[in-house]
């Protein structure tokens, strides 16, 4: 029984990896086959969650190592003092450009030090379970929250894209639209390189552009319309949102200008 279950899980995993790979290569028949399946949303969501967790692994490892590394209170204080020094450097640069009141620098430093001292004292307070347990749980909690945060952004946006697609004559059901557009997350496994200097930024940019291209293709296939319409359906929500935000900002500026006149 358990051998059968293991084989089935392994086969399903292999199938998902295959789907992910062929999605990255924009194989049209794979997209069409995926949309036609009853479990398209389940498979799409599984890939989205898996890609997000893989991408978050490097941050998790870095956080765990830095949180579990034994560090004396004195070393922590030194690190904090370095932070204050760095802040002061940028503050002094700013002072050359702005007319800041005398004594402000000393006041800011005094408050920063008092705040940090408060933080250190709280950090030293005992907890019921050993401190490292709490740190590991906090890091794991943040890591496991990543897929939920990605899902919220993706699903929220997909609703608007689906609405525009419907207005353009799209035929996708909610499950088909979400199941296919979820594939956009696959290239984001590259985000695992995010913490590598220089390379991280490039990897993120490549993942974003690749993800958008997959999103457009997915919208076109799910709605059975052209790539041109899919681009319109994908872009219009951003444009409408951006225009509304711009109008809101302009109205705010106008209101403030009138109020101060």
């Amino acid at each position, binding site marked *: 029984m358990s051998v059968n279950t293991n084989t089935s899980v392994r086969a399903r995993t292999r199938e998902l990896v295959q789907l992910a790979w062929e999605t990255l290569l924009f194989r049209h028949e794979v997209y069409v086959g995926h949309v036609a399946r*009853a*479990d398209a*949303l*389940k498979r799409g*969501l599984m890939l989205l969650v898996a890609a997000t967790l893989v991408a978050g692994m490097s941050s998790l490892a870095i956080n765990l190592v830095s949180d579990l590394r034994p560090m004396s209170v004195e070393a922590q204080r030194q690190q904090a003092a370095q932070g204050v020094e760095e802040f002061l450097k940028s503050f002094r640069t700013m002072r050359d450009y702005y007319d800041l009141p005398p004594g402000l620098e000393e*006041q800011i430093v*005094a*408050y920063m030090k*008092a*705040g940090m*001292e*408060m933080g250190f*004292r*709280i950090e030293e*307070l*005992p*907890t*019921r*379970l050993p401190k490292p*347990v*709490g740190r590991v*749980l*906090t890091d*794991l*909690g*943040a890591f*496991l*929250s990543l897929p*939920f*945060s990605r*899902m*919220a952004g993706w*699903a*929220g946006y997909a*609703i608007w894209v689906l*609405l525009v697609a*419907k207005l353009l004559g799209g035929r996708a*059901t*909610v*499950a088909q639209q*979400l199941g296919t557009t979820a594939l956009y997350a696959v290239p984001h496994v590259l985000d695992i390189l995010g913490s590598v200097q220089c390379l991280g930024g490039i990897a993120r940019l490549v993942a974003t552009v690749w993800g958008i291209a997959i999103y457009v293709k997915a919208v076109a296939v799910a709605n059975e319309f052209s790539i041109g319409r899919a681009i319109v359906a994908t872009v219009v929500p951003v444009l409408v949102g951006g225009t509304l935000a711009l109008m809101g900002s302009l109205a705010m500026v106008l209101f403030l200008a009138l109020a101060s006149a």
Partner: protein
Amino acid sequence: MRDSIRTLIQAFFLGEGPYTEMREGPRPALRGLAIVALVGVAVALVGLVGTTLEWATTPNMAEVKKTVLEGLQDMPWYQELRSSPEFREQFRQWYDRGWQIFPRLFGAPDIPTAAVRVVTLPLGLALVWFLYGLLAHIVARMLGGRGGLGQTLGCTALAVAPQLLNVFTFFPYLIVGGIVGTWTLLCRYVALKACHRLTWSRTLAATLLPYVAFALVLGVFGCLGVVVLGLISGGGSQ
């Protein structure tokens, strides 16, 4: 119970099947109520586990309160004002009052509140489910929907499925966030479509109008509250 959980999981994935089954099955409203209550209790119990683990890895809040107070009193602004006994008294009052609100706002683990949620969460979910179902039914019928009230309530009860994501909060410090609300909206759309057999645009209207109605009622009550508070404080100052 196993059947209910399987149905909920299927409903989460937005296929019309489970919603249609609920529509065609016997006593949909009663079954819906049972599902909503089951999800509410399960989510609250699991949340209690997560909160307990967070509590066990967080310092005693009374100690934190004392440490923060000492830290604030060491700051230059407090040193400047501490000579006034009136200020000291007022500060202490505001600090105690703030401490009753802010830790909860910032997610400090609170076991009694998490325990009370075992009762309040199912009740709250049931109330929202009933009010939403009723309003959505009225709108759907006005738009030509064919489902009965019991069928609407049964189908929209399955839209509680995204609450199952909160089951993951047994893991401390995990934040599920806004996805539950967004996914609930999607489930409600599919529920109303399966129940009333409307076109997509009419189903969308039937899904969203109850939200608009809730927002309007909240807005009106909010404005009334501000007016009443203004009258009270205005009357008090005269």
